[in-house]
């Protein structure tokens, strides 16, 4: 394999200096001349008919410039699954009915935030409360209140995945287990809340700065909702304070700020309060799961059947994807000869659930890895051994679903096995649990119905050799600006500092679907690599004759040196070639184009990453309180482009997924979230954070740029599962519902005594 100049190096992030000096400007920081401040009035009822909205008092308040309600909208329904109109079910500003506590009903723009807030109090909404239903198991009953007209039994989406003869296979099993699990909700809790500044001009064009994971989706969805053409809307993503799956749909600040701005022709800024963020932005999907697993005596898995009922909340959002991926990843990372999944997403009168880092896979991993450990224990087989026996291997075919090419799972298992041996015998009430996992590198299915390539990039080489990289990719903190710049620099043969990236501005960047599904490194990376290669080829065409090469393919550029591949010493400066090439092209800058849309890779994803994680805990038997001591992860994500980035993704994922297992939860009472503040929502902080270690496993993914694949969301899959297994190893109790609170452990220990 060739040695790289930029890739794999520990570089400083391209957005680093701005971020450590306080100069990075987030949407949250933007102030425009004449800007107004907006606030959103939200339903206090989980389910009610809107009888009337009287905004007259609010409009009269001094300083209020506009008040809008559903009547001021086109009355269209928003949804990100655009290919399926019935799944576009969210008005954003409700006209006739509210479906959860927090559903927006009106918005105000005023000269300052205080005035806007005061105005909200002056809006009179007359509601007729309707019977509401909160639990999906209740909501699917015959006599449950109907949340969306025409949706029977409140069933929003169903999913079925099946291969092999499941019923026959179960008959052949020596041992079968059936278990039930419950997975909880979780807040994204990005540090920057949802926010947008919308500015509509007299020229009829709308510009929106927003904290988003996909400026393209926002542009397209806004166009649908406000009745402008896509090209009349420019969406710009400034620095963004995290997303984690919560920021790629069209949200209430974006929509309401736009509607308000279109009314007053002034910029309007809306920033969600943290409480609003907790109650009225989307969240991780809670689910009830039933799983049946069958194996031979030696631990060979023969059959699996899993049924899942998820709490959809009031609207679909990305819920359909989540429901599918829960089913798909319930089979991961194993080779099941027969498999059946039935998933039901059910509407409830609760805050909508949607995408969150891992997209259903942290839930399904908790279920399947917990059950696998139980089965292994019942059969007297070592947890690593049973995973080795059944784990995926390179070039595995998931029948009818997907093709796995590179797969380092066996090596990851070896590596964790070694770690376990090294840890040796543990003190009493300590335990290490493991969980294996896999995840996708971006999605294939075009539910958004975009006519564009999924990723595209433009590379412009300027006269001084400096390079402008244009991409729609969204750096929300995960570091895609850096990773993509590295890919560009490597391919073009220049230094990282030669690249200047222009990203996530729909006005100047080619379309990219954005930062979700762990797609940017692989998909946008491929597009960037292709664009850089295109630009490079144009440069080499000029060099070829001079160096007497037979064909440009004999040439390359590395470290700003243009040379014959076979005789690297023969060549000349990149700068000279750039100058000559631009002169030779009538003075036009060199422009390279690239794009990528996955194809012929099944329905799910072009590539999958794998890993195994070991979580070590110490339990206080008397109280059930436990501590996460350390987390060791053997992970493979193909070629590592940005090692600092991967460490960060991994450690951050452990904070988030450890929290999912340990303490994060959104308890509700009649549809009201009971802990809508950071004071009450428990998060892992630095004193709670376990020690972390990463065991990087080498693999090469043929489909990815320089052999790379995902290293973002997948890392959130194993931790809750491994934690559950660790508690069991430590004190012998098994908690099948998340989060694993000390109180639950305590209760289980009491039951164990009896």
């Amino acid at each position, binding site marked *: 394999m060739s040695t790289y100049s930029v890739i794999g190096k520990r570089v400083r992030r391209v957005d680093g200096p701005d971020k450590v000096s306080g100069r990075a400007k987030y949407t949250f920081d933007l102030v425009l001349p004449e800007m107004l401040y907006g606030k959103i009035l939200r339903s206090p009822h989980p389910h009610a008919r809107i009888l009337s909205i009287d905004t007259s008092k609010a409009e009269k308040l001094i300083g209020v410039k506009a008040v809008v309600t559903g009547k001021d909208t086109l009355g269209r329904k928003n949804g990100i699954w655009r290919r399926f109109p019935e799944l576009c079910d969210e008005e954003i500003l409700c006209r006739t009915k509210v479906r959860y506590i927090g559903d927006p009903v009106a918005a105000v723009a005023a000269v300052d*935030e*205080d005035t806007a*807030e*005061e105005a909200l109090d002056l809006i009179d909404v007359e509601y007729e409360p309707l019977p509401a239903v909160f639990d999906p198991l209740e909501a699917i009953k015959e006599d449950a209140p109907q949340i969306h007209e025409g949706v029977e039994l409140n069933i929003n989406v169903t999913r079925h995945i099946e291969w092999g003869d499941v019923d026959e296979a179960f008959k052949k099993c020596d041992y079968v287990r059936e278990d039930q699990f419950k997975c909880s909700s979780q807040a994204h809790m990005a540090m920057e809340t949802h926010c947008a500044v919308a500015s509509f001009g007299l020229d009829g064009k709308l510009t929106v700065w927003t904290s988003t994971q996909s400026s393209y989706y926002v542009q397209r969805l806004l166009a649908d909702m406000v009745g402008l053409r896509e090209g009349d809307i420019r969406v710009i993503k400034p620095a963004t304070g995290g997303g984690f799956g919560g920021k790629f749909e069209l949200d209430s600040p974006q929509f309401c700020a736009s509607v308000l701005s279109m009314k007053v022709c002034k910029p309007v800024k809306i920033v969600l309060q943290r409480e609003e963020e907790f109650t009225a932005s989307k969240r991780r999907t809670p689910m009830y799961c039933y799983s049946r697993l069958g194996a031979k005596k030696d631990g060979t898995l023969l059959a699996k059947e899993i049924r899942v009922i998820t709490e959809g909340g009031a609207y679909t959002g990305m819920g359909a994807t989540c429901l599918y991926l829960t089913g798909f990843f319930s089979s991961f990372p194993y080779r099941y000869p027969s498999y059946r999944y039935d998933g039901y997403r059910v509407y409830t009168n609760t805050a909508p659930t949607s995408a969150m880092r891992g997209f259903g896979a942290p839930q399904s991993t908790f279920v399947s890895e917990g059950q696998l450990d139980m089965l292994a224990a019942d059969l007297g087989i070592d947890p690593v051994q049973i995973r080795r026996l059944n784990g995926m291997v390179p070039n595995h075919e998931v029948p009818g679903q997907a093709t796995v090419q590179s797969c380092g799972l066996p090596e990851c298992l070896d590596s964790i096995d070694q770690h376990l041996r090294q840890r040796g015998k543990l003190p009493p009430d300590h335990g290490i649990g493991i969980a294996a996992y896999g995840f996708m590198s971006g999605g294939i299915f075009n539910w958004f119905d975009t006519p564009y390539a999924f990723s595209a990039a433009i590379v412009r080489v300027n006269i001084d050799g400096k390079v402008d990289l244009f991409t729609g990719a969204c750096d929300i903190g995960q570091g895609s600006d850096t990773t993509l710049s590295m890919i560009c620099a490597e391919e073009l043969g220049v230094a990282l500092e030669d690249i200047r990236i222009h990203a996530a501005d729909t006005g100047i960047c080619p379309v990219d679907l954005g930062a979700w599904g762990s797609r940017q490194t692989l998909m946008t990376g491929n597009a960037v690599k292709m664009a850089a290669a295109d630009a490079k080829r144009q440069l080499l065409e000029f060099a070829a004759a001079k160096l007497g090469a037979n064909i440009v393919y004999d040439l390359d550029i590395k470290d700003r040196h243009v040379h014959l591949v076979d005789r690297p010493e023969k060549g000349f400066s990149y700068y000279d070639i750039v100058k000559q090439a631009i002169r030779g092209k009538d003075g036009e800058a060199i422009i390279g184009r690239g794009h990528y849309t996955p194809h012929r890779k099944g329905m799910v994803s072009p590539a999958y990453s794998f890993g195994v994680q070991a979580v070590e805990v110490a339990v206080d038997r*008397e*109280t059930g*309180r436990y501590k996460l001591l350390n987390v060791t992860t053997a992970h493979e994500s193909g070629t590592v482009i940005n090692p600092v980035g991967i460490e960060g993704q991994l450690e951050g994922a452990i904070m988030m997924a450890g929290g999912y297992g*340990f*303490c994060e939860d959104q*308890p509700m009472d009649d549809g009201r979230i*009971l*802990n809508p503040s950071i004071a*009450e929502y*428990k*998060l*892992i*902080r630095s*004193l*709670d954070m376990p020690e972390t270690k990463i065991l990087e496993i080498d693999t090469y993914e043929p489909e990815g740029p320089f052999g790379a694949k995902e290293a973002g969301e997948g890392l959130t899959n194993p931790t809750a599962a491994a934690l559950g297994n660790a508690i069991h190893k430590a004190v012998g109790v098994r908690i099948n519902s998340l989060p694993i*609170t*000390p*109180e639950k452990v*305590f*209760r289980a220990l009491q039951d164990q005594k009896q």
Partner: protein
Amino acid sequence: MMKDFEYLAPKTLGDALALLEQHGDDCKVIAGGQSLLILMRQGLVAPAYLIDIKGVPGLATITFDPKEGLKIGALVTHRAIEKSPEIRQRYGVLSEMERRLASIQTRNWGTIGGNLCHADPAGDPAPVLMALGATVTMASTQGPRTVPLEDFVLDYFETAMQHNELLTEIRVPAPAPRTGTVYSKFTVIESELGTVGVAVSITLSPTDRTCGDVRIVLGGAGPRPLRAKQAEDALRGKRITDDLLKDAAERAAAEAQPISDINASADYRREVLKVQVRRMAAEAVSRAERN
């Protein structure tokens, strides 16, 4: 949304008390504002006048005298208590407690007086100070008065202070020889308000492990910090054994009046109290033996 108010910054205690007298119910005192500003932002408290006492001189000192014990001015910050060498040496439990109270940022600006006046039933200082037998002094234009801390904290977020009064000082008697005091709060994540808190102070007889004076105070176990009197009675005058501690712990748990909330069920709180009282009492005894 925070409502506007008139801001008054008295330069002396006398001025502050006069302003309090003058504005009565229309005013509110702010010290560090760590608790108050949250309530004001939520619109739960909206005074017409805000009297800022943070700059009032003379209320931010810590002094120790073997006879009179420890005096902590109401405006002393949590962080100053945590770091005070005097307190570390003689009242280690106070600095230990402070070290786990909120966070450094909050401790740097928040005051002990504000904490006691806020009277959060999950607050940490009150149980510890009660276990140490502290008294508090309040002042008004009519003069000062001193009451045991136990009589100061009345209910959820309610104290015995009148509208025209300011808390000025907390006094803690000098610890008797062979006394051990410990505090621990039980949390899920390390730094948060305690699900329950337990403070135990035990004085052993000069010669053996017979329990003399004892105070057991439970936090987060009712509307205010609660003295577990039956548990104390079970220990007082007896030789400390593991069984005795266990028995006292059972009694303390039975005396507690915890509620169920999103952090824990009442029942679980009781169970944890049982464990924590036993552990803390044992620790107090071993500290007493060392003192």
